[in-house]
């Protein structure tokens, strides 16, 4: 919940990223807890996948942010609106 609010409220794109990590890790904790509860290994396997995807996502996302910063000299999400109609 904290992560979701972070994504919606914060203006700094890096903080938004960190919020997304929070969401993903919250999901991971949920998955592990439930796999322990249900005695099912599939949840833990899934968590490993999620961590791998999150790492890749962070790498690509941070790459985009760096490229963007070089162009616009800002990481403020409100000023990034070139995809607007």
């Amino acid at each position, binding site marked *: 919940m904290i992560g*979701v609010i972070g*994504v*919606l409220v914060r203006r700094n794109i890096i903080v*938004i990223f960190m919020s997304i990590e929070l969401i993903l890790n919250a999901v991971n904790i949920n998955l592990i807890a439930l796999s322990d509860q249900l005695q099912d290994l599939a949840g833990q396997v899934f968590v490993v996948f999620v961590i791998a995807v999150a790492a890749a996502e962070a790498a690509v996302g941070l790459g985009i942010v760096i490229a963007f910063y070089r162009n616009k000299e800002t990481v403020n*999400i*409100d000023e*990034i*609106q*070139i*995809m*607007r*109609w």
Partner: protein
Amino acid sequence: MEFIWLIPLLPGIGALVNGVVGIRFFSKKTAGLIAVSTMALAFVLSVVAFIELLDATERYYQVTVATWIPPIPLETVNGLGSFEVPWAFSLDPLSSMMLLVVTGIGFLIHIYSVGYIDHEPRAGVARFFCYLNLFCFFMLILVLGSNFLVMFVGWEGVGLCSYLLIGYWYKKKSAADAGKKAFIVNRIGDWGFILGVFLIFFTFGTLDFREVALAASTMPVETNLIGFGVVSMICLCLFVGAIGKSAQIPLYVWLPDAMEGPTPVSALIHAATMVTAGVYMVCRNAVLFTHAPMVMEIIAVVGALTALTAATIGLVQTDIKRVLAYSTVSQLGYMFLATGVGAFAAAAFHLMTHAFFKALLFLGSGSVIHGMNEEQDMRQMGGLKRYMPITFWTMSIGAVAIAGIPPFSGFFSKDEILYRTALHSWPLWGIAAITAAMTAFYMFRLINMTFLGGYRGPSWEGAANKHGHGDDHGHAWHGPHESPRLMTLPLIVLSVGAVFAGFFGVPAALGGSNAIEHFLEPSFTVVGASHVAEEAHHLSHAAELGLMALSVLIAVGGILFAYRNYVKQPHESEKLAKSFSGPHRVLTNKYYVDEVYDATVVRGTMESAKGLWTVDRKVVDGAVNGTGWTTLAVSWISHIIDKYVVDGLINLVAWFCGEASYIFRRAQTGLIQNYAFASLFGVFVFVTWYIFIL
């Protein structure tokens, strides 16, 4: 006689060689030699054929060289007929006589031409002999042709060669015009001829002369009682052809203009051979014509009128060749008069004698023109007897012959015609007799003005200095001179012919046997049939002799009158011309026939052509332009429709999409958090939906 097809072929080969190779490579001598030798060979063959024909029992021989039109079914009056035309040549007395005339006189004129044409450039000489040989080729095809179509080939061919030779000096506008005139006027006649040929096939189902004559002999003679039937129609059409080719009223106008060609051409084509083709054709179809007495009447009248008209014009012409041209027209009129009164043999006889003395006269005039450095006006001549004696004597023989003084050839043939005309109708005889007097007068006017009296031409010392060596002949003119031997030799031979040719037809009244008439008889009748046109009434020998004496008297009168006016008292003629200035002017202008034709036929054609042009421009072009304009208008309309309706619809759709998109476009803020919020909101909605509604 199997070789008669070779006779036309020989000059044809000569023409081919001279035309294809000669114009490029041959010297003047080679070109002349080839042309003369082919003609000599053809003449020898003709003589051989003639002798063989004399020995044959049935004097008819036909040889088929090749098929031309294979048998094809074609409709005739008698149902379906088979139309077949072979390349067939036939020899009978009439064609053998023509053969001798054409090859013999053609040969002499070829020799003469070698001398005459010597001043022309080398290529021109070869071209000239090519045309001349080609003419002989077609003329012999015309003569020997065994059916109408083969004859028509020759008929058209000689017309073509006539055109080519009249326009030989094609750079001279008057010569080119004269050539065109001859060709176009001939075309009118050819139209009649070909119509006649169509009618013949349609009626008889064949085009062979013999078969046609045989079929025609079984048909009734179309007198007034029976009326103007199909045979009369055929004969009339054929006669139109003969009028065109043989220069009769009203189509004679081309012949005097044809004198623009070289003089040997005038002698060969426009005096001796081609112009007699019409007479020959009528004689060849004698059986057909005797079955159409009304057409015969027309022929006789046309012939007599032509003879008279042309003779009157000839009285006042001053161009030496034009006098002879009108004389030719007049003599051809005589021949038609003869055929018209049924005296085919007399016509053919006169054709032969005329060929001799008219060729002689033309060649003589050519010699004079040659000696006078291309001067043709008789007023510039006079006293030439001193300078060119051979020409003078030979031409005088020709003039005496044409005037009809016994025992020269013209007397016998012309008198035969006069006699037969007298049997037929006295008014026509009157016209013919007056014409005979005029003929004698104008011929001796020509002789007197040219050869006798004082010299009136330009002085040659001055002329020689003025022209120097740079004139168009490359040599100075040293006054009138006799022509080279190559030119005088044919003159002498022809004058011998002009003297003696008449003895083939000495009439019975003078103790002769009229050999030529008996010889030609088979050509004018059908084999086995009785003599069709047996004369019902003969005049007594005394009356015949009286007529002869009268015609001789008339001729002598004409000669003496000419002598008095042009030699004894040269001013008499001018006085005469002044006192009859009106008629004189009319005659000098040739009855204004050319002007009348120009104003009516030529102008009419031009005007109607112009009218048609206007129609073309206004109506046809208008229609075309209208179509174009309509297309333009329609396309403009469709363009408007396209632009406003079709494009409008498309633009409307696009505009609608654009307008509609304004509403939705607001959603695209470009702010990620908005989108994230929207999707989160969606998740809430769906979860709420899932939990509470379902």
